[in-house]
């Protein structure tokens, strides 16, 4: 039975680049996948595209492509990525230009489009999970993108693309696409597609399955996190998976690292909704079969729902924040007094907040009072943050923290303030048939 090797070169847009180069050079890969699109990223990218029609793709696309394209070309490694963000076509053009600069003539680059459904959805009465309709967002709506499945990616690979660039696609689809193409999996073989989704799910966060987001000294030790190796999936035609990494790289692949990633961002493990299948991870088993080699079996799947999730970016509100520190005896009490003063000042000066939160960093900021009782720190950092309807009001919050320097408790230092617009994300579902995908090709 045939096996292919897929590497994960990024787990988020700002991820390290060297591990991807290591994979391209030494991973003996068939595919290198970069997952770089968080929930909100595409809404911000859409705003960038509105200002400049050639912008709106991942800011690190050029650096990543320059770093990995030569080794990928030399070793016959094909790339799949969602770095197209709000503008896959421009991302493909930019990649084509880089390939030419690098002398990689003939490199074929594909852009998958169709995820952008803003035009169709803008005036729809479809309900969002925030309790209003899409239409109800009015001109606050910034983007609407459907999560695409693996079929268009497989199509691009079938047509000979060396690099496939998408916008919004379900993260595991980036891995499922190559599997559908290589092994000619039927799009209604639900157990097989479910196994393919597990491959993607375990690999998509890159270092999170090789020892990243895992170390806890004395309990779960991980060597050489500064040189963390990114994962490789050895996937057999029947969906059987071994997770491993480049020999000699940092980190580790163990049953424990794989189990943690298996449940990462999963709700009901028997029903993991994806565009192409409802994956079932409830009976998965993992076994260490060698150093940094873990065998994963038991995933399955049931028929897809026929609906695609759409994430809708919108301007939600403004947020203002201020921070200041207190130290030594009474630091905690002075921090509390500072918070009281800021709250009173905001009320006195008529700053309206729909939500106002105050934290004593170093004391109760992460998990509140209940879980923080009885711990008195040497220093605390006051943090006051609130949500407002206008940027001007948001600014007032940080200003009121700053004025504590000369008007607040003794010894306040290191004041800091910020105010920003909040682009938030809501979601809805649309029929798969309403989304029309297309693939465009470019050649270096």
């Amino acid at each position, binding site marked *: 039975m045939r096996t292919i090797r897929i590497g994960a070169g990024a787990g988020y847009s700002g991820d390290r680049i060297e591990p991807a180069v290591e994979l391209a050079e030494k991973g003996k890969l068939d595919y290198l996948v970069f997952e770089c699109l968080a929930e909100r990223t595409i809404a911000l990218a859409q705003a960038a595209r509105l200002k400049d029609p050639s912008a709106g793709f991942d800011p690190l696309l050029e650096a990543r492509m320059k770093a990995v394209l030569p080794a990928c070309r030399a070793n016959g490694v094909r790339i799949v990525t969602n770095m197209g963000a709000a503008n896959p076509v421009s991302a493909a053009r930019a990649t084509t230009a880089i390939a030419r600069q690098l002398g990689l003539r003939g490199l074929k680059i594909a852009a998958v489009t169709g995820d952008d459904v803003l035009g169709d959805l803008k005036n729809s009465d479809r309900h969002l999970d925030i309790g209003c309709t899409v239409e109800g967002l009015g001109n606050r709506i910034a983007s609407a993108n459907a999560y695409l499945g693996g079929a268009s990616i497989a199509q691009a690979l079938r047509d000979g693309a060396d690099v496939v660039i998408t916008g919004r696609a379900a993260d595991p689809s980036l891995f499922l696409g190559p599997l559908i193409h290589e092994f000619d999996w039927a799009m209604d073989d639900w157990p097989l597609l479910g196994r393919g989704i597990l491959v993607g799910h375990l690999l998509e966060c890159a270092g999170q399955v090789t020892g990243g987001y895992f170390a806890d000294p004395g*309990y*779960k030790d991980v060597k050489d996190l500064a040189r963390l190796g990114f994962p490789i999936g050895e996937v057999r035609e029947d969906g059987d998976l071994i997770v491993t990494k480049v020999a000699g790289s940092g980190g580790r692949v163990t049953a424990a690292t794989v*189990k943690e990633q298996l449940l990462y*961002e999963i709700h009901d493990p028997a029903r993991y909704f994806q565009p192409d299948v409802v994956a079932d991870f409830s009976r998965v*088993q993992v076994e260490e079969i060698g150093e940094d080699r873990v065998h994963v079996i038991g995933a399955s799947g049931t028929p897809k729902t026929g609906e695609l999730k759409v994430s809708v970016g919108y301007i*939600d509100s403004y947020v203002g924040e201020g921070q200041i520190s207190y130290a030594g005896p009474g630091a905690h009490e002075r921090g509390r007094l500072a918070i009281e003063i800021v709250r009173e000042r905001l009320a006195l000066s008529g700053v309206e907040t729909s939500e106002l939160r105050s934290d004593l960093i170093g004391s109760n900021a*992460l998990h509140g009072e209940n879980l923080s009782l009885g711990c008195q720190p040497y220093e605390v950092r006051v943090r006051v943050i609130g949500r407002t309807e206008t940027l001007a009001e948001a600014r007032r919050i940080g200003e009121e923290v700053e004025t504590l320097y000369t008007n607040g408790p003794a010894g306040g230092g290191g004041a800091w303030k910020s105010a920003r617009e909040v682009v938030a994300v809501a979601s809805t579902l649309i029929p798969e048939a309403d989304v029309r995908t297309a693939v465009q090709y470019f050649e270096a």
Partner: protein
Amino acid sequence: MKLRDIAHSRTGDKGNTSNVSVIAYDPSDYELLCAYVTTDRVKQLFDGIVNGEVTRYELPGIGALNFVMTEALGGGVTRSLAIDAHGKSLSSALLNMDLPDDLRSGSYE
């Protein structure tokens, strides 16, 4: 004894929902996890943080539980005012859960 002594954990986020896994280091401790780390205890631990439902999913194949907690991330990762908007540190709070020292003898309630 702390939960941290027998299990490890990872937090994930989707919108305003957080999921926290609890994975036995030794698969033979899975039954203990099932018996002691109940939905009610988790709900109680996260009182004031989680405002929605807590659902527990069981994965005997890997000796793990998965807690899914709604209304847990201050309105959602993209709009939360919390310093840890993703709730990534919730796993550490869960591992700090006290376990009875006689857990293995099964004499706890």
